């Protein structure tokens, strides 16, 4: 140890290099990438209880045995508005299939705004409100839009965070039905 300063400098240099390499590997990674996957895929779907606009209560038990697509949204959310045409096209294909149910759960919005919007856009799938945002919480949503596909057995087979295309929806639906694509 004739040159302690040199040894310390070497140690600091090693640490700096390690941290630098770590940082360098992260450049270009999207820190929001986590939002691309849901923790719930492969697990049992939470049992929700929501209030459809036409009145009454809708629970998961009511939909047992059907493949369910659950879409969380708000009228004021621009990406939700952007995905609406795709949702419409998707639902036009499957509206008449009794084994498929489609529920749009409003995450955080006023009832009158929702009614107005649903009427104006002629949305014909079930739109339900989520009192106290319980369902949104139980599905572990981080924002909107988020879409989940639940198999007839009640397992979440697919999840899409952010706007879904028709293709995304079809892939999720097939996964939920247990049909590999």
């Amino acid at each position, binding site marked *: 140890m004739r040159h302690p300063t040199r040894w310390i400098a070497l140690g600091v240099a090693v640490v700096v290099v390690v941290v630098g390499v770590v940082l360098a590997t992260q450049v270009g990674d999207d820190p929001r990438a986590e939002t691309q996957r849901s*923790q719930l895929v492969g697990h049992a779907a939470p049992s929700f209880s929501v209030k459809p606009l036409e009145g009454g209560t809708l629970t998961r038990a009511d939909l047992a045995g059907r493949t369910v697509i659950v879409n969380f949204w708000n009228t004021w959310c621009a990406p939700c508005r952007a995905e609406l045409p795709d949702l419409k096209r998707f639902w036009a294909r499957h509206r008449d299939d009794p084994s498929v149910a489609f529920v749009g759960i409003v995450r955080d919005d006023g009832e009158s705004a929702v009614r107005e919007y649903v009427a104006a856009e002629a949305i014909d799938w079930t739109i339900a409100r989520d009192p106290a945002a319980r369902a949104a*919480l139980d599905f572990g*949503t*981080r924002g909107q839009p988020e879409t989940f596909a639940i198999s007839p057995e009640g397992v979440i087979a697919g999840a899409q965070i952010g706007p879904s295309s028709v293709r995304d929806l079809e892939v999720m639906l097939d996964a939920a039905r247990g049909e590999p694509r």
Partner: protein
Amino acid sequence: MSKAPWVLLAVVVAVALVWAAWPEGGRSARERARDLAAELRCPDCEGLSVADSSTSSAHAIRADLLRRFRDGESDDDIRQEYVDRFGESILLNPEGGGLGVLVWGLPVLVLVVGAGGLALALRRWRREPAMRATRADEELVARARAERVDAP
């Protein structure tokens, strides 16, 4: 100077600390919910805790925490439940196990080693003379001595 005022001061400080730390009964479900909310990241905003945020998710989570505590669930159970649903990043306090040793232990280690090093250096400085004589110094002294001897 007498040490009595300092002893008395120590007593005052001790009384104040005990007073401040005296437990006031168990914590209510509401307090526990508030404390845990500060440890959870609000899922639909960035960088804020559930306790600080006013988004709909934060509201829902606060209500959920309160309900769970009233149902008698433990902090750890609830944390685990949230990690299962939202992923590990929901926790603002990183977990201590595994790599977590790094983030919790390393600062303590650095401070302890630093303080130890400092204490050692101070002790060494106290024992050592301020400067050591170099060889040139020693030669100078030797020559001076020699000259002195040589002198009549």
